């Protein structure tokens, strides 16, 4: 059958519901997977390459001769979130105030909850005012007695 004559011959039974496809041009029973997969892979590869390229393009910075690297200022820095800082400080202070723990294991000194300490002191009566280190020595006014070195936490020294 010549190629031009295809579709002209009404030899077979045509079903109107299916359509007027000429005989001999029915869709094949199987779908060719290979070209679809290759096309999909090409699209995916193209998208990935584009995204990667854009990412590089936006992230690349070229340093000028006057440009300085960002630096950290010494503490105390500006507070990004004062409420969060306060909540963190309160949490750590409460933990130190309310837990048991060793302070100096060799010398047998430990930390107890302050409510427990208050209960112990209330039992002592007037002796509760007595200094824990005897004999009592009234500090000389005007001298800090090396207080700064003993009290200041080392990591908060800057910025004063």
């Amino acid at each position, binding site marked *: 059958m010549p190629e031009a004559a295809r579709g002209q011959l009404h030899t077979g039974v045509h079903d109107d519901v299916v359509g007027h496809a000429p005989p001999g041009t029915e869709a094949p029973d199987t779908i060719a997977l290979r070209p679809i997969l290759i096309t999909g892979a090409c699209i995916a590869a193209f998208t990935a390459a584009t995204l990667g390229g854009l990412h590089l393009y936006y992230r690349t910075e070229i340093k000028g001769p006057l440009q300085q690297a960002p630096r950290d200022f010494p503490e*105390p820095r500006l*507070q990004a979130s004062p409420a969060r*800082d*306060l909540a963190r*400080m*309160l949490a750590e*202070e*409460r933990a*130190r*105030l309310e837990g*048991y*723990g*060793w*302070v100096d294991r060799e010398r*047998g*000194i*430990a*930390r*107890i*909850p*302050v409510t*427990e*300490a*208050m*209960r*112990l*002191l*209330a039992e*002592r*009566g*007037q002796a*509760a*005012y*007595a*200094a*824990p*280190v*005897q*004999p*009592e*020595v*009234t*500090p000389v*006014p005007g001298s*800090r*007695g*090396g*207080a*700064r070195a*003993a*009290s*200041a*936490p080392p990591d*908060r020294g800057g*910025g*004063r």
Partner: protein
Amino acid sequence: MRQQKRYAVYGRAALFPDGAEARTPPDGAVAIGALDREAAFRDPPAVDAALLQRGRQRYEVICTPCHGYTGHGDGMIVRRGFPAPPSFHEERLRAAPARYVVTVITEGYGVMYPYAARVEPRDRWAIAAYIRALQLAQGARVAGIPGLVEKLP
């Protein structure tokens, strides 16, 4: 109210022999409540649970911005750059008498200004007692407290 018969501040006053409007109290005058305050400052109140609780409440309201909740002298404004007060847990202040703490609250010390105007004498003693509790809580001798060893980690 502005227009009334009265002497102007520091004005002349013919009524008084020295001709001055401002009067000084007579010799021996005592302000109302001054003797009670002096007595409360001089004599420490009895230590009980209520006094310590009061001391804790006053301490956490007034003292914690600088001295911190544990008394290490690392309150929030110290962390933000204010000069650090001494820790209550150093040997010098563990040996200081309670009256010294009350005196410092009354008269101020270093960059700490006097708190006499805003802390009543009884509350000063309460704070001093609570500082003793803090010193005990942060530096308890294990041998001196029965049953403590089992609770330690």
